[in-house]
């Protein structure tokens, strides 16, 4: 069993013994981010001392760095934060959205060495160090962002200054992002029941039983469910529809997660069997899987949607909601079949942000209704899912 209030022991040590103060001393170590197109962005190292590689993506949220760092959807990626001052209010274990830092590396303009917040917290450097994740600070992150925006996402390397010249050759040898199955790395290896200290100490009881397919979820999804009086069982990504149904759930939620949805054939198959038999909710990768199960395709966006300010129109009401997003792929509605409909679209580029179904109980959204980080506008979608759950139980 895993639970949200289980914190990594390393932090407790860091908080008390002042070891970090030591680690911070010493000269700044210059290092650079090298992108596939040959561009080089210089800065200095923070956090773990070491090279890193991965797909380089940017997120435009102005707060929520710790939630982003621990979001499993960032597996395989190096994250550029466009907001220049990171770590201002510190980092604190209860804010983690998963069991560990998930990004391969963090790239910032400036990291705060003296955070300040009523609830306390350690520095970004300390946090990365404890998680053994490298960081690069002092970077013209706006220049990096503009590069990615115009060229599309690329892979990149963080290396020491002397290594910059060789970096190009190394980049060519790296496996492509698309080819890697990150869900296998971040999805839960074993089933667990979720308990949430903030909701009810030690309790896993609830009026509704929701099964969550954990392909790399954020804790806050589970917290939302618990707060709505749900018992929550999380299952590994490879779990089959039969195994799910054997638990007689009142609803099934497909979680977000990293990587190309085209690699998720097992889950797509599963959803095909579950559709119509139990109320379904899909978030982000879960939504893409549902889309594929409904006949749609998926495709990679030029540089993805990552931020806390993306407007989404709910087609039924015409109302626009501000959403938190973190995805590199989107559903192509072409091919949607048999009663499946687009329910939400992105106001910026018109891409599909939600699906619904005329006959089946379904809530499927590309963005993060659980927030953490991001606006709290979209919690209503969990309510809607639970209405479907209650409806299915009643009928």
């Amino acid at each position, binding site marked *: 069993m895993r639970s949200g209030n289980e914190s990594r022991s390393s932090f407790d040590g860091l908080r008390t013994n002042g070891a970090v103060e030591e680690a911070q001393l010493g000269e700044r170590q210059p290092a650079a981010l090298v992108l596939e197109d040959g561009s080089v962005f210089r800065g200095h190292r923070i956090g773990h001392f070491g090279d890193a590689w991965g797909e380089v993506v940017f997120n435009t949220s102005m707060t929520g760095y710790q939630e982003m760092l621990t979001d499993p959807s960032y597996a395989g990626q190096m994250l550029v934060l*466009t907001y220049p001052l990171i770590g201002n209010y510190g980092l604190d274990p209860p804010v983690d959205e998963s069991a560990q830092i998930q990004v391969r590396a963090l790239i910032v303009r400036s990291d705060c060495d003296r955070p300040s917040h009523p609830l306390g917290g350690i520095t970004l450097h300390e946090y990365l160090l404890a998680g053994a994740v490298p960081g690069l600070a002092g970077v013209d992150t*706006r220049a990096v962002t503009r590069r990615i925006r115009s060229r599309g996402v690329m892979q990149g390397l963080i290396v020491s200054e002397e290594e910059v010249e060789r970096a190009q050759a190394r980049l060519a040898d790296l496996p492509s992002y698309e080819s890697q199955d990150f869900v296998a790395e971040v999805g839960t290896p074993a089933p667990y029941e979720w308990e949430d200290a903030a909701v009810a100490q030690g309790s896993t009881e609830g009026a509704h039983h929701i099964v969550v397919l954990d392909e790399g979820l954020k804790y806050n999804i589970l917290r939302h469910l618990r707060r709505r009086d749900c018992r929550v069982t999380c299952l590994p990504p490879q779990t089959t529809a039969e195994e799910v149904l054997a638990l007689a759930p009142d609803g099934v939620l497909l979680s977000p997660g990293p990587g190309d949805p085209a690699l998720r054939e097992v889950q797509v198959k599963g959803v095909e069997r579950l559709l119509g038999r139990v109320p379904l909710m899909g978030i982000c990768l879960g939504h893409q899987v549902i889309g594929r199960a409904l006949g749609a395709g998926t495709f990679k966006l030029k540089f993805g949607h990552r931020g806390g300010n993306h*407007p989404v129109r709910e087609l039924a009401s015409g109302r626009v909601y501000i959403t938190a997003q973190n995805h590199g792929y989107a559903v192509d509605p072409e091919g949607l079949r048999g009663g499946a409909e687009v329910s939400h679209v992105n106001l910026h580029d018109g891409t599909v942000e939600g699906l619904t179904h005329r006959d089946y109980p379904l809530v499927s959204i590309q963005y993060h209704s659980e927030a953490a980080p991001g606006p709290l506008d979209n919690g209503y979608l969990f309510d809607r899912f639970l209405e479907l759950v209650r409806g299915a139980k009643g009928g």
Partner: protein
Amino acid sequence: MPKPEKVLIIGSGPIVIGQAAEFDYAGTQACKAMREEGVTSVLVNSNPATIMTDEGVADVVYIEPLTLDVISRIIERERPDGLLATLGGQVGLNLAVELHDAGVLDRFGVRLLGTPLEAIRKAEDRELFRTTMQEIDEPIPPSRTVASLDEAWTALEEVGLPVVIRPAYTLGGTGGGFAHTREEFERIVRGGLAASPAQQVLVEQSLLGWKEVEYEVMRDGADTCITVCNMENVDAMGIHTGDSIVVAPSQTLSDRDYQRLRQASLKIIRALGIEGGCNVQLALAPRPDVLDWRAAGETRGDERDLPYYVIEVNPRVSRSSALASKATGYPIARVAAKIAAGKRLDEIQNQVTGKTTAAFEPALDYVVVKVPRWPFDKFGAGDRTLGTQMKATGEVMAIDRTFEAALQKAVRSMEVEGSSLLWEEREEADPLAAGATDNRIWHLMAALRRDPDTLSLARRTAVDPWFLERLLTLVRMETRLLSERLSPGLLRESKRLGFSDEQIANLAGSVTEKVRQQRLSWGIRPVYKMVDTCAAEFDAVTPYFYSTYEEENEALPEATSRALVIGSGPIRIGQGIEFDYASVKAAQALQAAGYAAIMANSNPETVSTDFDTSDRLYFEPLDEEAARDILDNERPAPNGGPEGMERVPTILQFGGQTAINLAGPLTLAAQPIMGSSAEVIDLAEDRERFERFLTELGIPQPPGAAVGNVEDAIQVAETVGYPVLVRPSYVLGGRAMEIAQGPGELARYASIALEAAPDKPLLIDKYLAGLEIEVDAICDGERVLIPGIMEHIERAGVHSGDSMAVYPAPSLTPAEIETVIDSARQIGLGLQIRGLMNIQYVVMREAGESSLFVLEVNPRASRTVPFLSKVTTVPMVQVAVNVMLGRSIAAQGYPDGLWPARDLVAIKAPVFSMAKLVGVDTYLGPEMKSTGEVMGIDRTFDSALTKALLASELALSAHGTALLSIADQDKADAIPMIRNLSAAGYTIYATEGTAELMRGLGLEAIVVPKRLSAGHPNVVDVIEDGTVDFVVNTPEGGRSTLRDGFHIRRAASEHRTPCFTSIDTALHAVGAMVSGNDRYSVLPLSEYTRRVAPVGDAAEARS
């Protein structure tokens, strides 16, 4: 909601503390938005110095007093079907309520657009607001709304000291404050009840020291809500947001804090039913190790949810929303106006990206710091402590990628003495002990230089340690610059923290120019990044830039003909919105002539910093370093060498003294200047050179001389005869300028003035108490076009900015007019002015002889340019810019000499913010004190005067009670006024001397003692208890008599009782009252200006 066809937009009136240029920006955007929507706009504002009242912004413009009667008449005449009141500040909002309550809106079928009346009430009425918050379960601090002192005592029992008192329906915290004792409580409650139009105040638990956070929220008719941005006050609760250093976005809020407060703000705008924009102010629990709040605030639910309280909602566009617009690139006023016209957020295009819509939330990838600009450089005697009443007249904003750099740039932009954080006050006592003042940021720096313990400093000041740590970073860098050799690495790092070349030179023991050259030779130069609303996620098209020391430059030079316009920086006394008007017009004129206009300014409230005013906007300090960096950046040859494109010329004439002061430095740096050269400017501003120049032309000046010490000053005074006028050269707004009656006073004033500007000579002039007149003129080297002559109602000695100015000059004889024209022509041509100049004269009429003396020549656009442009219909700035571009006055179709007067009388009247400035003496003198202006325009002098008085809230009612205390030198002049008042049935209270004068006239007066210790009721009592309706108190020269009248004048300010300190103003105000206040017309501006006055009519208009 259906789209309206014709909308009346109410402006905010004169600039006062708490209501500055931001509403010109808002109103201008609203008018443009209406035009885009195909809606006819009718605009009314009493402030002529605004862009919104300019030709071509609104469809119909009224420059009329903002009173119920006037607006009702406009509505009756224009028959609009919609009223947009949320863009005119508190003035607009309160008028909307009045119009509704008077039944005017119903009678003429006018719909209140955007925010419904119900929402205004719920937000503004402290009690309704409380209940609304309780209904939606949003926390508010324990409080009671009271309408009397008795009720207040009961409330105090419940809430307990300390409390804060907050009046309803006011702005800028007028009349509020903290009470720690029962005495304070009684005093503030009384003041607050008087200040509130609804006679209602809130007695509320003190949240002193909590974080103060604001959200700017938008909502449309389809209930889509977004927040534009949030802002965190560096100065915690207890210091008005308008007086706080503010940072956007918030820095010390976690995502959870941020989103919870955001959610609360959205909930509130929905509950109030606002359609448009609003501002929500919240208090959030600070660090418990800084301030133990656990007694004051309970955590609700999850312990990770910090307690917060909703403090207030402004259901309208505000100062904060102007700041938020400039901080994010999201045009709140424009969007609010479009929502009012029936559009949904997702139907309004985001003009910055051209792709996205207004239904999104800006993402910032930089830090914005706003610093208020206070008037205490002029009001040294004022109470400088900051509290819940706002005192700042304006503000500056700076953008960078770190807080440190943004703050330092903002401080540079303030244009105050010292101009960097390095400056320390010579003070032994701990300056922080007495509470926050306008100098707090310097005090914090000084404290950290002595003791780096940020936590203990935080405990004393309630400034979050995060901000203090940032200041400590600056202190550490100071130390390094002091001790280490300047290396490329160190220099670059200090530039990244916002240190100016000058600061670095000071610390590193070098000179500024050497640091600059060293820096450039090391290749350390700023790059310019774009404010794009989206943190680079989308390509943006509006070229709005800020400097930073990083890698990529986004402001690449363009190969077009272009010129840089230097704006005027923060609104302060002496340099107000008039100069922003001129800057905006200059940019427009450049564009009309086929040039690209580049604008530089640091003031977020302005139209000049609107994204569509110029072709490129640099949001930067207006100092030499920033200007030269911009000019270097605008020139493609990156090393500033001779190759490549021409250097970009700079226009310095329109940004007040701020801009003109750059003439010398830019010329030295070989940067071309458009218009009058640095040489010309120096000739006009250097007292000795200018004197020689005038002597050669044979034009008289008041006799006097420039001196460097007190002895010489007395010597000169003896020669020319007392009284004399003392002032430093090279300052604006008559700073440190006084009239001295004898050698004792002169010595005292002279030493103060020499201290204010140590290395500048001091000017001693004979004081000529004649008629003051003023002209603005445009010269091209051949012709001198004088659009109009203005005559002041107050005699010379009252600063021109504080005088009522009448156009056309009513009392000048044709011969005098000829002399003025001649003199202005000679000066303009002799000085070789290219563009605008302003001349102030005194006319001395003695024994049938009239002579004209030049007081000063300003080789630039003056404060009166907008006023004159509007009433004469000469587009003065445009003509001047064209002259600079090489088009002669003749080629533009304008004559040489005086432009024919229009068939109208226009009076510009000053407006003061004295109620807010405790401890400041309000008497009018040669040092400027007003913050804004209004205009009264009509066909006759009396009607124009009546309107000017109405608009400046000095109009007197036909019956009532007056308090007179008149200086000896004014007594003879006062007699007709006293007779008038008596004849009108006024009850008159008078001090001893004045009462005696009245007895001599056979008139009755109730004598009140002037000395406060000489029994009751005294002069102050009759003001404070509301017995008198207005006061005439003209000061005699001399310090002690000034002190006597001080209490009278302060009491009048605080009680908002009109108080005349110049006998000339008083005579006219009483004259207007006698002539009948209600006889004036209400017409669009163009109706008044349509006709040229029949010759000889100007002088008759007065009768």
